């Protein structure tokens, strides 16, 4: 289906709004699928598309060694992808197929992909403190934060989700004293298996991090000394030099809503990534995709989803083939340890595989003896067979065989054992 002659005679035009992981993956996939029309990539940030995972890790701790660009600079020109970085899409008309940019440029398109991602959810109680309060979503955010953390600084991390914990780990490595303040009763409530959270808490405590759970903040003040005090409803007070908060995201769906697309906690798309308008597509954090393998719409805020769905939807826009189903999967890196999580985060039983006492492990989540989820700690090579076992709904008959770290999981996954 390469370069179909367009009814109106011009080469087809794909416009991609976003400039993040999903957008970069999509434009790459369009060219790989043979699309030879015009591709225009519009990104609000004045940077080449970059990876966000390093922002809470290497960009803070080892900035000289941090590599964030998804593709080298020459890639876009080489692939004939026109870039508009530092310019935002402000309006589009789905039926007229025209997109307006903040700079005043108007782009006519045949197909439009929205990969607008999300922004950090604002916390007005903390924002009113003015300086000394940070969030972490963009490269500029990470660079602004980096200069404020040094040995002995008291860092109050508000929000015990994955980004909060990653920032806590990085701040500890940079020598800071860290307190993590979470409103809920448990950490990473939105998405990690309970035994993995326990491992993470033990790791953080061992490094000196203090946790305050169930702390509902009601007041934030700053003394003349610039010291910040956060007060919880139950009277607990936390004193620090700076605050970093990560309390979830706000999806960038304004464009989609004003164009009349169906939006329900994300832009609703089918298995091709098509929105409620057949020429408008969406992918990445912002998209809630129909997933036949699960019989429901699913939305994820992970690197792998942005990469795979961006690729799948970019290809679908060219070939008309549906996106392939992938077992949901993500990683988090803390204190140099790599944690990977796949599939369901809730299970009846967690089957541990690894030397007792060692951090390195693979743990399976079982429901009625069937593998529904898994996580690894510094054992990523076992994630591949573990994901395959989740995908096929592998039934565990011999627990000792699986629990023995010497058993080759590849053989279990493909039925040789």
């Amino acid at each position, binding site marked *: 289906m390469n370069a179909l002659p367009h009814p109106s005679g011009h080469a087809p035009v794909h416009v991609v709004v976003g400039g993040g992981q999903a957008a970069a993956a999509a434009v790459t996939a369009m060219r790989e699928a043979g699309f030879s029309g015009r591709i225009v990539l519009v990104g609000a940030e004045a940077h080449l598309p970059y*990876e966000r995972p390093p922002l809470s890790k290497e960009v803070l701790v080892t900035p000289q060694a941090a590599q964030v660009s998804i593709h080298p600079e020459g890639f876009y020109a080489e692939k004939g992808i026109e870039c508009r970085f530092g310019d935002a899409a402000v309006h589009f008309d789905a039926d007229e197929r025209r997109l307006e940019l903040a700079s005043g440029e108007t782009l006519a398109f045949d197909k439009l992909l929205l990969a607008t991602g999300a922004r950090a959810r604002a916390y007005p109680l903390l924002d009113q403190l003015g300086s000394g309060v940070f969030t972490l979503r963009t490269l500029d955010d990470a660079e602004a934060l980096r200069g404020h953390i040094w040995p002995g600084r008291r860092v109050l991390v508000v929000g015990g989700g994955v980004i909060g914990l990653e920032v806590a780990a990085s701040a500890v490595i940079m020598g800071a004293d860290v307190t993590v303040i979470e409103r809920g009763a448990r950490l990473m409530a939105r998405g990690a298996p309970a035994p993995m959270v326990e491992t993470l808490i033990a790791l953080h405590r061992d490094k000196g991090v203090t946790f305050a759970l169930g702390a509902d903040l009601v007041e934030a003040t700053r003394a003349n000394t610039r010291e910040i005090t956060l007060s919880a409803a139950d009277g607990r007070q936390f004193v620090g030099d700076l605050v970093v908060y990560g309390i979830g995201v706000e999806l960038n769906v304004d464009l989609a809503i004003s164009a009349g697309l169906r939006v329900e906690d994300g832009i609703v798309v089918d298995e091709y990534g098509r929105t409620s308008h057949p020429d408008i597509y969406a992918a990445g954090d912002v998209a809630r995709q129909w997933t036949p393998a699960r019989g429901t719409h699913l939305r994820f805020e992970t690197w792998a989803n942005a990469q795979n769905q961006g690729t799948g939807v970019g290809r679908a826009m060219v070939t008309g083939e549906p996106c392939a189903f992938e077992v949901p999967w993500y990683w988090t890196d803390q204190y140099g340890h790599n944690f990977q999580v796949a599939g369901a985060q809730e299970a009846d039983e967690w089957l541990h595989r690894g030397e007792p006492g060692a951090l390195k492990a693979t743990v399976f989540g079982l429901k009625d003896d069937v593998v529904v989820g898994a996580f690894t700690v510094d054992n990523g*090579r076992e994630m591949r067979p573990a994901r395959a076992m989740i995908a096929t709904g592998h039934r565990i008959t011999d627990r000792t065989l699986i629990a023995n770290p010497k058993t080759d999981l590849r053989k279990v996954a493909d039925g040789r054992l």
Partner: protein
Amino acid sequence: MEKVHVCSLADLPPGEARRVDTSPAIAVFNLDGAFYALADLCTHGNASMAEGYLEDDCTVECPVHTARFCLKTGKALTQPATIDLATFAVEVEGNDIYVLMPQGGA
């Protein structure tokens, strides 16, 4: 070229990998009896490719963020890596495996 001993043939069965602590470290792979050697440190971050997942299609997947590299050419095939890994020649002599390191490191 400096010839560095890796291990005996028996110590590197098919489907397995070994790390050699040269400078830089090298990962040696046995894919169904064929031997390949790549720089051990993933070009995307702090991961040992010897700990990676060996695929039948002559690639290895990084254990940390799953970038795939070609065993023959070292080419970075998938995100998040974009920089290729260095490759090294492997020699089998009798029952032993060696890698060839260019003088002065790679």
